[in-house]
């Protein structure tokens, strides 16, 4: 199928991941951006404030004094009916933590770009996923991208997913710090008007029935129809207010897939089915699962090994929340060994995606053997030679048929 906007009609620019996000936000008719700069997210805010200063966007840009305020400001903006965006990393996300839960529980659509960076201490500015994994229970949809092109594509998709009437949840777009954020890449962008049409113009606010007004009204702060957002809610109805969040998450996965397909029809670009991006898994004995930019390196090594006749595959998890349990089960059924790569660790447990995959595979009659590889903490490089060693180890496990050590560390001095 040829895309509606052929590649030669698309705007081609050399952008790094941060700039790609900034351009995506520029095209997405965002009403309010409130952000505080933090390495390696800075370029997003810097670039976007240029657009504002040049009058290229209609956006209200709020320079705040902290990330806690940045997210608070866009929660307010979203509650007022605006399309809102912010970006952060690492400690900044940690400071947003309290408001993360409020944004999702109030069902306010918004997009947060996280440029993944390790958490202190010791202080470190380079990539790992500890920051994003700290918010996995906050009720946000979490997407992880592999390259700058995908960062651009996904940021635009994120607004559409977030505002879908069946979803109405905040969305994060995760891109690896420095590996993506500061690396120039060829990025193809769609023309402004095509993006506007894809998003359906400005944000449309969902409606709900309010008893005391006796009518259906838009869920927004409006003096004509006064509403209270987030007041005291104790054991009488708090529990009932949590169930819609669960239900919205259930519906979100299909919306992510649908929006991803719609974008594919426009741009000709797709990433697996929008949830999982698999390579070589059909006949594979050994499969590695991974999030983010490392997938490129793993795929490169897998291709090399497959050319030597080894049956290996890769599954990149693009959607981490809601976690695609059925898709994982389907794709990993019949595999002998699965190596789960995690760029974060839950101390006293395993890597976060290992826990999800274990849960997903438990129902299978013939479960694959599972090994958890924690890698790249604090931006430690993950060269192909390391990945190849991991694959060889996994092939060895497939032959032996047992896993002696489940939690392993890749590329650490030991």
């Amino acid at each position, binding site marked *: 199928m040829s895309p509606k906007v052929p590649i030669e009609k698309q705007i081609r620019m050399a952008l790094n991941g941060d700039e790609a996000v900034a351009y995506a936000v520029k095209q997405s008719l965002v009403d309010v951006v409130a952000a505080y700069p933090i390495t390696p997210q800075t370029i997003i805010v810097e670039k976007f404030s240029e657009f504002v200063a040049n009058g290229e966007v209609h956006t209200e840009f709020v320079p705040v004094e902290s990330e806690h305020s940045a997210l608070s400001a866009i929660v307010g903006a979203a509650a007022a009916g605006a399309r809102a965006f912010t970006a952060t990393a690492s400690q900044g996300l940690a400071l947003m933590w309290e408001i993360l839960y409020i944004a999702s*529980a*109030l*069902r*306010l659509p918004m997009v947060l770009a996280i440029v993944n960076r390790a958490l202190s201490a010791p202080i470190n500015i380079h990539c790992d996923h500890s920051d994003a994994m700290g918010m996995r229970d906050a009720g946000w949809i979490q997407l992880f991208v592999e390259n700058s092109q995908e960062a651009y594509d996904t940021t635009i998709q994120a607004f559409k997913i977030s505002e879908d009437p069946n979803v*109405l949840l905040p969305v994060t777009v995760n891109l690896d710090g420095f590996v993506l954020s500061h690396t120039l890449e060829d990025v193809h962008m769609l023309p402004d008007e095509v993006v506007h049409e894809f998003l359906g113009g400005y944000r449309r606010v*969902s409606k*709900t*029935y*309010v*008893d*005391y*007004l*006796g009518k259906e009204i838009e*869920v927004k702060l409006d003096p004509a129809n*006064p*509403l*209270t*957002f*987030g*007041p005291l*809610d104790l054991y009488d*109805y708090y529990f*009932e*207010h949590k*169930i*819609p969040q669960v239900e919205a998450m259930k519906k979100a996965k299909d919306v992510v897939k649908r929006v991803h397909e719609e974008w594919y029809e426009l741009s000709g670009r797709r990433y697996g089915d929008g949830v999982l991006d698999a390579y070589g898994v059909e006949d594979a004995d050994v499969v590695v699962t991974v999030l983010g930019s490392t997938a490129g390196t793993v795929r490169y090594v897998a291709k090399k090994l497959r050319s030597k006749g080894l049956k290996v595959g890769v599954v990149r998890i693009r959607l981490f929340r809601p976690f695609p349990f059925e898709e994982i089960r389907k794709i990993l059924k019949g595999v002998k060994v699965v190596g789960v790569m995690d760029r974060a660790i839950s101390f006293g447990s395993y890597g976060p995606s290992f826990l999800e995959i274990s849960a997903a595979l438990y129902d299978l009659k013939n479960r694959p053997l599972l090994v958890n590889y924690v890698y790249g903490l604090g931006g430690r490089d993950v060269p192909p030679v390391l990945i190849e060693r991991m694959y060889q180890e996994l092939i060895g496990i497939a032959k032996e048929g047992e896993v002696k050590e489940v939690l392993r560390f890749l590329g650490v001095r030991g």
Partner: protein
Amino acid sequence: MIKSEKRVIKEPRRWYELPLSALPYKLSTEYKTGGWRAFRPVVDLNKCVRCMLCWLFCPENAIIWDGKDIKVNYDYCKGCGICANECPVKAINMVPEGGGSS
């Protein structure tokens, strides 16, 4: 303005019947907060000079001015005592609620 008489609320309500965004289904005025009060402000209208400072300072809008006298709306007054504190002629006394001896 909102007419709360129009409201029809059936309880208990199922989760899918509740409004989106965890919005309260009742108006905030229907949550009577007067029960929180430990001390009740009592206005001595003979001392009161109608300066309206209590009306101005009340954080709950619980002081009512009917054009002639000052009254307290005990449905919402939480008994904070700011009115009594601000009153320049000491016309408001804070009286203990529930079996107080004064």
